[in-house]
C-alpha cells in the first residue's frame, strides 16, 4: 500500500477502538498545530504524544501502552521511515 496520509488513517483505524480511544494527526506550524484527521471519539482525558517528527505530531487520548506502541510503530513507518 502506498504511504499516504489517507492510508495511514486507514491502518490506524484498524488499531483504534472507535468508542474508547481517540487519536488525531496534526501538522506542526510554529506555535500551533493543524488538525489533519482523527479516529475515535473524544475521551475527555489528557492528550499524550504518540509519535512526532519535525513536521507531524500524532496525539492520543485513553491509549494504553500496547496501543501506544503499535500506533507509534505505524507512525514511524509512515513519517520517520528515513530515520529507521
Amino acid at each position, binding site marked *: 500500500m502506498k504511504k499516504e496520509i489517507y492510508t495511514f488513517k486507514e491502518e490506524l483505524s484498524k488499531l483504534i477502538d472507535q468508542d474508547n480511544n481517540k487519536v488525531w494527526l496534526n501538522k506542526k*506550524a*510554529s506555535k*500551533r*498545530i*493543524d*488538525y489533519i484527521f482523527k479516529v475515535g471519539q473524544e475521551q475527555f482525558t*489528557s*492528550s499524550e504524544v504518540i509519535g512526532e517528527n519535525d513536521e507531524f*505530531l500524532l496525539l492520543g487520548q485513553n491509549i494504553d501502552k500496547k496501543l501506544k506502541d503499535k500506533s507509534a510503530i505505524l507512525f514511524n513507518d509512515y513519517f520517520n521511515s528515513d530515520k529507521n
Partner: protein
Amino acid sequence: MSKDFIDDKKLEDILAQVKPTEEKIETIINKSLNKERLSLEETATLLQADKPEWIERIFKGAEELKNKVYGDRIVLFAPLYVGNKCINNCEYCGFKASNTEIDRCTLTIKELQAEVKAMEKKGQKRSILVYGESPDYDADFIAKTVQAVYDTREDKGEIRRVNINAAPLDVEGYKKLKEVGIGTYQIFQETYHHETYQRVHHSGPKRDFKWRVTGLDRAMEAGIDDVGIGVLFGLYDWKYEVMGLLEHTIHLEEKYNVGPHTISFPRLKEASNVSIDDKYFVNDEELKRIIAILRLAVPYTGLILTAREDAKLRREAIKLGVSQIDAGTKIEINGYSDDDDEQDINREQFVIGDSRSLDDVIYELLSDGYIPSFCTACYRLGRTGEHFMEFAIPGFIKRYCGPNALLTFKEYLEDYASEKTKDVGEKLIQEKLAEIEDEKTKEKIEAKLEEIENEKRDLYF
C-alpha cells in the same frame, strides 16, 4: 474562483416578509437554546421583533445561551498595529490614502519586537496583528512579522496566538501564512450591501466587493479553517448587515463544513479627516440587539467586542453574548512601547472608547464574576476546524475551557497582576474550584495550579 454569494434582494425580501409573533420568537429562542444555528428566516424574525417585551425576551434568551455555551469565561487579547500605509480610499477610515494629515509608518522588526515585549510585560498572550492594504504588506511581509512576534519573549512572557486582520490574499499567500502558524485570519466585509459598498469604497483594491467577500473562501482553500468575519455597523441598515453576516456564515458552513470562528461588529467612530452621513449610525440599544441576536443565531461562533466601545457599554454587552474582548488596547503605531497614554488621532485608525489597562479591565471582569482567559489550548492541540465541532459535545467546556481559563488566569496573577487584582483573583479561583463536583477533575486542576505557583508555565488540558 468562488462566486459572490450575497444576494441583496433575497436578504431584503426575507426581512420584509417575516412577521414576528410571541409564539414564533419563543420557538426560535428555544431552537437556539438547543444550540442549533438559526436560519435566515428565523434570524430575520428576531431582527424584526421591535416590541419592547420581545426585545427583552431576546436579551434574556441570549444571556441564557451565553451562560450555557461559554459559562463565565471571557477571552482577552490585544491588537497590534503593524503598519498604516494604505492604497484604498474608504470614506469611513482614517488610514485612507487621501488622508495626508496622518503619519504613515510601518514597524521595523526591531520596533515590532519592542511592541511585543511591552505587551508581554503587561501579561498579554494573544494578539491580532493589523495591517493597512499596501503592496508593502504582502504575504511574505505578514509571515515575517508573525514569526517575529512568536519568536519574541520577555522574561516569562510570550504571545502564544497571533491572529491577522489584513487585506484578502490569494491562495498562495494564505498558504505562506498557514506555514507560520497564524490563528484566525480576519476580513471584515464592512458592509454586505453592494450599492453602499461601492459608494463608500472610492478607489483601491478594496472597491472590488467580490474579491473581498470571497477572501475567506481562498483562505479555506489554502487550508486555513480558522477565519473571522465582521461588519462596520453604521454604513447601512443594521438589520440587513446581520443578515449578511449570517449568509456569510451559512456559505462557509455549506462549502467548507466549518463556519467562522469569530464575528466582529465594530461601530463607526470618529477618525482623522472622516465625515460620514449618520443616517445608519447604530445606537447603544441597537448594538445590544445586534449582539443578542447574533448570539442566538450562531451559538458556537465567538463574538468579539472591541475597545472602540466605552467601558460601560462593554460591561453591559458582555452578558448578552460577547465571548472575547481586547484590553489594555493601544491602536497607535508604536503605542505599547510609547509611554504616552494620550491618543493621537493622526496616528490612529479611530478613537477608542475603552483605554483602561489590562489589569483594570481584568479587575472589573472579576468583580462581575467572570474568569479572564488567555487560553490557546485548542489551537496548540489541533482542536480546530472540523475537529473544533466537538466543542458541541456536552462536557467539552466543563472539562477543557473552564480549567484552561483558570490555568492561564493563574499565570497572569502570578506574573503580572496588581495586588488588588491578585487578591480578588485568587479568591475567585478558589470559588470556581469549589464549584467543581468531580473530585478527580478538581485534583488535576489543583495539581496544575500548584505547578504554576512553582514557576511552570504554559500548562493546559
